[in-house]
């Protein structure tokens, strides 16, 4: 539960460091939509994390969606761990739709997701797939990239051992 709170806050913060193409804001006064797909432990927490904050001058709407077809219209998509076996079709649905996809499954980036939450020593961290971001024409701030755990971009399916290795590198440089 603590982890989800943290993840909700992170999701709220991601919006600060990511730029979407103009296309996604073509309709004036349309809200900024964050969709949650799969088991929903997080949508209320996300709403809480934003509070009254707007994103790119628009109010934030968090939707728990069940229908894949509805996913294209959102700006950000959180895919719950419950959907880890169905990631391919889900991500395929929003491919090239300029959606910032966020997941919490081990192979999320390998399946074409942009940001994936991982747990390092009990703390919530995240990885970024720059290729996926580029494909979706999302500009991710270097500040966000600095904070991400590196090494995930090389392989499509990062193993656990690789993760641990990169974790030690990260903490060494921090000290």
């Amino acid at each position: 539960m603590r982890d989800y709170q943290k993840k909700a806050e992170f999701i709220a913060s991601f919006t600060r460091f990511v730029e979407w193409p103009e296309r996604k804001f073509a309709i004036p006064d349309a809200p900024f939509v964050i969709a949650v797909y799969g088991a929903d432990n997080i949508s209320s927490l996300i709403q809480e994390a934003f509070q009254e904050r707007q994103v790119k001058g628009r109010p934030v709407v968090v939707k728990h969606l069940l229908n894949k077809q509805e996913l294209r219209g959102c700006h950000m998509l959180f895919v719950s761990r419950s959907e880890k076996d169905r990631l391919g079709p889900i991500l395929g649905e929003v491919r090239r739709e300029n959606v910032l996809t966020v997941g919490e499954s081990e192979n999320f980036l390998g399946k074409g997701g942009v940001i994936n939450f991982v747990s390092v020593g009990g703390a919530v961290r995240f990885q970024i797939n720059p290729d996926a971001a580029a494909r979706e024409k999302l500009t991710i701030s270097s500040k966000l990239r600095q904070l991400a755990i590196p090494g995930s971009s090389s392989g499509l399916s990062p193993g656990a051992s690789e993760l641990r290795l990169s974790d030690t590198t990260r903490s060494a440089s921090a000290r």
Partner: protein
Amino acid sequence: MKERVRNFPIKRKLRLVVLATCTAALCVACTALFALQFYFFQRDFRRDLMAVAEIIAANSTGALSFNDEGAAQENLASLRAKPQITGAAMVLSDGRTLAEAGRVKVPGPGEQTPTFGFHETSDDIIYVHPIMLGDERLGTLYLHADYSRQANKLHRLYASILVAVLSISFLVAVFVSWRLERVILGPIQNLAETARQITSRNDYSVRATKVVDDEVGSFTDSFNSMLEQIQARDDALMHEIAERKRAEEELQRAQQQLIDASRQAGMAEVATGVLHNVGNVLNSVNVSATLIADRLNQSRTGNLARAAAMLREQNGKLVEFLTNDPKGKVLTSYIAELSQYLEEERLEARTEIDLLTRNIEHIKDIVAMQQTYARVSGTTEVLPTESLIEDALQLNADSFNRHHIMVERDFMPVPPVTVDKHKALQILINILRNAKHAMDDADDNEKRLTIRTRQKDSQAVSISITDTGIGIAPENLTRIFSHGFTTRKDGHGFGLHSAALAAQQMGGRLSAQSDGPGRGATFTFELPLATPATK
């Protein structure tokens, strides 16, 4: 101090002016420069701090957004490159401290967040900077900078630069003024040297050489023309002085002659007085001598011889003759009578001879006094004041008698005086004679001369001689002792002058006072007391 500077030689003054000007200008320039520099330092110090804060804040938005302590710490660690920044902290908007480094103070959870900007403490400057992302405030950055240490470092640096610049420019100024002062001082020193030569050798034929054509040059010209004038005047003066000297010598010779003449005249006068006195006494001597001669002529010593012859005739019957002869009876009483008479005669002659002897003594005195008076003077002796006066009166006694002048003595007991007797007598006689003349010239008033002696003070005795003569006009009172002044038609105006001179030589003084014409005059002669050692 000002007075001392004014008395400096020009060389030093010049140097002082150059150095003072140089130092003052440098001080002002340095102060202005350093003030500016300091202002810039202060400004740049803050600007630098702001820039650093800006960079750190911009780089820390991610770390703050995701509460990433490691990344925040890493950002702050980069501040190590800035030595003046002693501490830094990143505080989230909810008051939690995300990261901190070095010495830093952040407000506690309950405390108010300080306003953004600079906060100065005694040693540090604290800069509080917001960490913004777009319009959203993510947190606050606190930077502590050690301002005072940096400023002190700068102060010390500036102070040493100031000292170095001042000392170097001082040396340069000394050198420059040393070179330049010759330009000004050379001609002046040349002039001064000429003036010094003139004074030391008294040679006004020397001329100063004109070196430059400035104020000193024109001064040199004036100086030279002044020298010419002085030389010309000097020559004229020399001539005049020689002339005057000759005249003076002539005058002196004439004066000496006059002195001699008057001295002789004075002596003659005294001699006349002496002769008068002696003549008077000689009268008495003559009378006494005649008297004695008459007495001796009328002496009855012959009767005694006859009685003796009578006795010799009665040789052998003397007893009978004396007892029976009537002649013999008378003879005895006659002899007794005769012897008594002879005794009386002897006493009378004795008295007359005493008188005669006294008169002869008197003559001796008068002659002795004349000798004293005529003696070449110069020695001082200690004399009773009264005897001095009496001697002077004695020499004038005859003429005073003849002119019916009454002498009144008002003597107080005074100590003896140290005088040159001859000069003192001369002065007194002179005054007495003047008094006599003054009273002769006056109308038929009472001719009275009062002589007073008083002790003036512990140093002097005064003898005042007051007459009832014609007196002295106030305008003459000051001139009375000057040479050649006289009111008498036969006077030579020398008596009182020489008397006053003589009084001065003796250490005394002579003064005169008068209430005006016809009211008499008083001459006061002050004489120095005999010092105890000479008593």
